């Protein structure tokens, strides 16, 4: 059993009405516990609709979606599912609700009916994990965008979430905020084996994943390692996507006769490869 299993997942908005719209069609994939998966796709390709199925915010109109073996359509399991799959959305100002950081992080555990002493422990653990412990008494509106997103992540961790879904969680952040959030979730992935699903338009973020899924018009059209997916730049451009800068530069330099390996993904890879083939 995989941690996330989508079988012929289909979602039709406004079924039977004039506005009927098929947002997901026959999407099937598995994600193992502890994996880091990026989901790419143009605006309107169904990425966010897909993400909202993974913790039961939306229910399939066809096919099935199982989290740790639990079907999202079964009402008695839905809280067990939401506890295990936390979501962080695009706008940092839309998801913090309390007047003080630690109250916000405690919101989830309180709703689960945890003991007060246990809640305090969980909140402390979660704030430490995202590097926000010193801000526990702050009002959220005094934080930067990246800090707000880290508080939102702490809210999920405090419920002992097994999986984090970032739905373009870095889209509204400045460069430093983006780096803060990505470094934090990657560390949690490495150190705690957190399963990570990252929906993004930033190709350099996707290049850091174990696996990349590509969506188009509600269908899953490609999946593979970043090296496999980014190898076909023309195909990605056709899908409205791009490749990371390092991939683009390496491709261009190879075209002009520089002998570079084909598996360059990150700036680190590119710098190392260029250094190696430069004759001083």
């Amino acid at each position, binding site marked *: 059993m995989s941690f996330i299993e989508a079988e012929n997942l289909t979602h039709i908005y406004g079924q039977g009405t004039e506005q009927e719209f098929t947002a997901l069609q026959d999407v099937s994939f598995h994600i193992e516990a502890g994996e880091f998966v990026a989901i790419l*796709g*143009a*605006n*309107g390709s169904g990425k966010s609709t897909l993400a909202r199925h993974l913790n039961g915010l939306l229910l399939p109109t066809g096919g099935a979606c199982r989290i740790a073996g639990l079907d999202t359509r079964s009402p008695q399991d839905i809280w067990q599912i939401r506890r295990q799959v936390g979501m962080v959305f*695009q706008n*940092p100002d839309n998801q913090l609700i309390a007047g003080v950081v630690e109250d916000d992080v405690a919101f989830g555990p309180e709703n689960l009916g945890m003991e007060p002493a246990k809640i305090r422990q969980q909140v402390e653990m979660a704030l430490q994990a995202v590097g926000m412990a010193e801000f526990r008494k702050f009002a959220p509106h005094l934080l*930067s*965008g*990246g800090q707000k997103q880290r508080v939102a992540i702490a809210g999920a961790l405090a419920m002992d979430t097994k999986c984090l879904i970032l739905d*373009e969680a870095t*889209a*509204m*952040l*400045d*460069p*430093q*905020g*983006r*780096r803060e959030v990505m470094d934090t979730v990657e560390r949690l992935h490495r150190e705690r084996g957190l399963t990570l699903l990252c929906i993004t*338009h930033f*190709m*350099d973020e996707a290049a850091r994943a174990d696996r990349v899924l590509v969506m188009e018009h509600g269908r899953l059209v490609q999946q593979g390692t970043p090296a496999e997916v980014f190898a076909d730049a023309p195909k990605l*451009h056709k899908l*409205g*996507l*791009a490749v990371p*800068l*390092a991939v*683009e*530069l390496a491709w*261009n*330099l190879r075209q*002009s*006769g*520089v*002998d570079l390996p084909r598996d360059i993904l990150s*700036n680190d890879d*590119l*710098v190392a490869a*260029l*250094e190696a*083939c*430069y*004759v*001083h």
Partner: protein
Amino acid sequence: MSIELKTVKYIYMPKTPYERVALDDVSLTIEEGSFTAIAGHTGSGKSTLVQHLNGLLSPVAGEVIVDGIDINAKDKAGKIKAWHARQQVGMVFQYAETQLFEETIAQDIAFGPRNQGLEDAEIEERVRQAMEMVGLDYHKFKDMSPFALSGGQMRRVAMAGVLAMRPKYLVLDEPAAGLDPRGREELMAEIQRLHKKGKLTIVFVSHSMEDIAKMADQMLVMQGGKLRAAASPAEIFAQAGLLQETGLEQPQIMQVLARLKQAGLPVDTRAITPEAGLRSLREVFNIHVK
């Protein structure tokens, strides 16, 4: 002609416990014909600043001058002039597509000019032109619902609504945020065309150092409500300390080139766009390939 800010100060919720100085003694000039980028940490005052450019917010101290006219003038004669001066500055908000509301695209774009009290024939002409300017075919789209479009197209309709009021200065708050790579590239190319062909002065807020490097000729850096720096992107990106302190970073291509330089490759670290970086790399390697 220009937009000029003179020692502008703005305070949110003054005389309450939540009082916060959002702009502090900001003076700057945006020359007509320029392409200006505004960058800074979230909460540094970028959005507050741009809302002063057409009088959506009025400073508590200091002046905003558009083409020589104080747009916050209080006296009777000054007020009418100020209204006309403000009309010269069009403003496209963040996620502008969320503000569309009319039944058809043409009606939505016509909303601004109609409020300006123009004749029907003039309005139609302006709608047609504005749609052309943002690359939407008039006959194909005019009677469609704006809500049937993709996010990127909806954002263009919102931009057309502002262009239909024929501003001289176009201010855009993070115009490409949330768009996929193609949508971003197309929209930024559209804005570049408006600048070159439409002769519009552009001011845009952005978190993308790549977009700023590619398009802007002037870069303003905000920090804690103050204007920290105003110079060309190349000059700003050359100052590592300034970038670090203000939450910004060099465009990725500069980061790569800097590391190559450190490793002893004779690359040109002043290249701020991927195209310029590639040219430099080609020069280095055409001589030195193994």
